């Protein structure tokens, strides 16, 4: 059996895992709840707070119900993969490290036009903001690169850098294909070849239907309220990570309701405010807890 000449989707992931493990990152697994971005993983948000060193990398599947296109758009899906790296503190050469990681996965940088284009990041509900770029490859954004400056409304005393790769976009470049669904997933060129479409097309189509057309509004609504209540209850027990998880879940419920088209603009603002309040409470509790630990 001949090994592929093309870099497969899974090989890109393997290579990134190896690269960042060699650098000294903990290789974690995805957060097992629906998140809109790797930033929501507790390994990013909560661990960015405080002075302890923390280097981590993981793949994170992301859910953005609004972005579904019933698997009919080549580049837009409601489910996709990010590769998330947090280096805390940011070393002195993070850009070089990032470019090295691209070389490692087989990117020929002399063949491409790589650019760092200003793009700052802000998440008001977490009181978090950062400064950075989106990385462009031949005009397409393939990575977000952010130096955190504030979390929980407090200036970071140790500055982390977050590097978020868009795996599908990188794969379409490496494999020179137009559509995410044409990405070669396992690298085989024989009858055992599996594409991204083979693996995920049905998932994409069915979830688009679920998100837009079929999800039970009543059930999702009651889930939202339940998660919100549970979040408050858990905070009272000082169980901060479970409380934060409830906040993440409530946020996903809101995104679903929004995609379902049942949230008017006025209501939307109210839901966002409720999620923000949860996130803020969790984050504040985490900071308070952390500072107490430091005193101890």
């Amino acid at each position, binding site marked *: 059996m001949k090994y592929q000449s093309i870099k497969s989707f899974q090989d890109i992931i393997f290579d990134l895992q190896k690269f960042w493990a060699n650098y000294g990152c903990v290789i974690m697994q995805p957060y097992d709840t629906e998140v809109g971005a790797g930033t929501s993983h507790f390994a990013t948000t909560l661990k960015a707070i405080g002075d302890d060193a923390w280097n981590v990398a993981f793949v994170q599947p992301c859910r953005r119900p609004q972005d579904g296109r019933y698997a009919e758009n080549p580049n837009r899906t409601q489910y996709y993969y990010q590769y998330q790296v947090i280096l805390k503190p940011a070393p002195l050469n993070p850009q070089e490290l990032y470019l090295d990681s691209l070389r490692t996965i087989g990117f020929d940088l002399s063949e*491409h036009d790589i650019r760092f284009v200003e793009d*700052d990041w802000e998440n008001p509900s977490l009181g978090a903001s950062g400064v950075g*770029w989106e990385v462009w490859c031949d005009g397409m954004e393939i990575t977000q690169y952010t130096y955190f*400056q504030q979390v929980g409304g407090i200036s970071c005393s140790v500055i982390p850098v977050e590097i978020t790769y868009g795996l599908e976009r990188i794969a379409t470049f490496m494999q020179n294909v*137009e559509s995410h669904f044409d990405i070669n997933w396992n690298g085989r060129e024989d009858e055992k070849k599996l594409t991204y479409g083979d693996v995920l097309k049905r998932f994409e189509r069915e979830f688009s239907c679920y998100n837009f057309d079929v999800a039970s509004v009543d059930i999702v609504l009651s889930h939202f309220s339940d998660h919100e209540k549970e979040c408050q209850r858990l905070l009272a027990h000082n169980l901060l990570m479970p409380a934060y998880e409830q906040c993440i879940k409530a946020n996903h419920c809101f995104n679903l309701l929004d995609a379902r088209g049942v949230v008017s603009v006025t209501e939307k603002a109210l839901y966002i405010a409720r999620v923000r309040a949860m996130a803020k409470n969790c984050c504040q509790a985490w900071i308070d807890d952390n500072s107490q630990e430091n005193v101890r």
Partner: protein
Amino acid sequence: MTQKELLLEILSEEIPSRFQKNAIQNASSLFSKILKEYGTHFTSVESYISTRRVMLVVKHLLKQTTDLYEEKRGPRVSAPEKAISGFLNANQREKSELFIRNGYYYLRIEEQARDVRDIIPDVITEFIERMPWPKSMRWYLEDQGTVSTPWVRPIRSILCIYDSEAINAFIRPVGLTTCGHTFGHRFISPGPINVTDFADYAEKLEQNYVALDYKKKMAFINNELVLQAAAMGLCPAYDEELMEEVTGLVEYPFVQFGAIDEKYMKLPSPVLSTSMRIHQKYFPLVYPDSTPAPFYGTVTNVPCTQTIREGLDRVLRARLSDAMFFYNEDADVTLEAFAQRLSNVVFHEKLGSIAQKVDRMMSIANSKEEHRVVALCKADLLTQMVGEFPELQGVMGEIYALKQDESRAVAKAIREHYKPKGAKDGLPDSYMGTRVSFFDKLDTLVGFIGIGITPSGSKDPFALRRAALGIIRLLCDSGHHVLESDNLSWYIDTLISAYSEQGLALLPETMESVHNFTISRLKIFISDKFSVDSEIVDSVIDSFDTLDFDYKDAVAKAKKLNILHGREGFPVIREAVKRALGVIGEENLQVSDLNEKLIFENVHLKSLRKHIEACLAKQEEDLVFQDIVKISGIVLDVCDNVLINDKDLEIRLNNLKLLNKYITLVKCKIGVL
């Protein structure tokens, strides 16, 4: 000769493009300011900026700084101990070194001339600390275990050469030691480069693909775009903002052209060009007759390979395919149907939905066509295209209106009603566009001011100042009779009623507050635009006895008065008017005519009377002005030499009537004062 030249290069990670142009001027003026504060002598400071670097060259920086001698004043002798010790600490001195003069403590500060190389590290540190970036960040300095002082992006290397020798100094706030080498282009020539002086530096940068001069880089891009496009029989649409943006995004410019798939050429040209400019930073190209061509120009940071070329085309295809998707989706829905859904879009929590805003604008619209424009003007906010490209609001409205066979005038007014978007944006062309723009902005002002939201300081989240300025420009500069036969109060009042009919109660003082707000902005508009002294503007505005005065008239009067103020003799007129008005006070002088006989008994009054009569008959403006200056001199004489407030009531009133004639003359010949 490069003698005694200082070369400094601060190399960082990529500097946001939009900061670069202003940083050039800021860097050189700050650096020269700091050098002067340190008592150095030099002939000039020049600065340059590139994607990753801020560069400074100081010519003829003398090796020695000047001796400093200063007597520094401290607190009063009676000041609390704390203030005195604070003064001493700040200057690192002992109490015994203080001396007293005129009740104050003083210190003698003497600094001997220093070798300039000893102070350069401090100058660099201060420069980094004081450079005004619009937004900066801190990064972690591992060796020191602290965060850095802020800079626009993390600094990675500092080159510093004085008089052809490298300076090695540790700059603690950024944890770096300055050195004698730099680096080339990040991708084409990344290796270290040793440098001896600025001429050498400039040459080596060029060899290693870093364009030193921002303006030359921009000119090169522009030139290449125009030349290469011309060879294809095309030209790029000039776009200064985009030009600056792409200039700041490349260390070395390579101009490249690409093709647009024919099937996307069916998209309206504003959609094509917005997608290219905003998302991709590509330059749209047009044929000589200005129709869009299926090509684009762009700038890359490395020479273009086949892979890059394909990539650039592919990204644009993906973007345009999305745009095409939105355009087709929108095509299935009429603007009326979109407009109906505006009740779901919140204008402001306390001011209802956009649909309600539209209803209120209806109440002040007049003709049938105007009502049509108002009904449809906000509909495109709900199209997918505007959802994707907010900057196309209005533009899509016009395109979709024409598609559904609205009249050209209605379609154009839909687009134009957003104008002017800011102080630099042009006004609407059409009468209806002007009117509806006025309705929209006035409804916004009435609503927000009516619920007590007014801008304060730098806070103006709802851009009310911009709305007011828009209204003022529409009223003064559009050349249209925006208000038709009604006055501003009628419009405000009708809107207030419309709000209240919708159950949205506004504050009782809304009418007056809106007037006051727009008038306060009018004052600023006049003094800024025509450089009119604010006192003059105030006097013009105060001279109107109604809030519903004509803004255009106010502008004209202020301009005229401003010219008068510059004329010789004007202070005499102003003084005389002031004195005359002061004497007249609140007296009612309308009762009877002047008693000529009484006037002729006094030589001063007689002369005044004669001159006023003569002047009233004259027309030629210059002569009239000179006359009035002369008459004003007589008025001042009268005030000095005649007992105006005579014990005899009749004489007194008669004197006042004469002075009042003078005031009437000034008002009638010169206008307001």
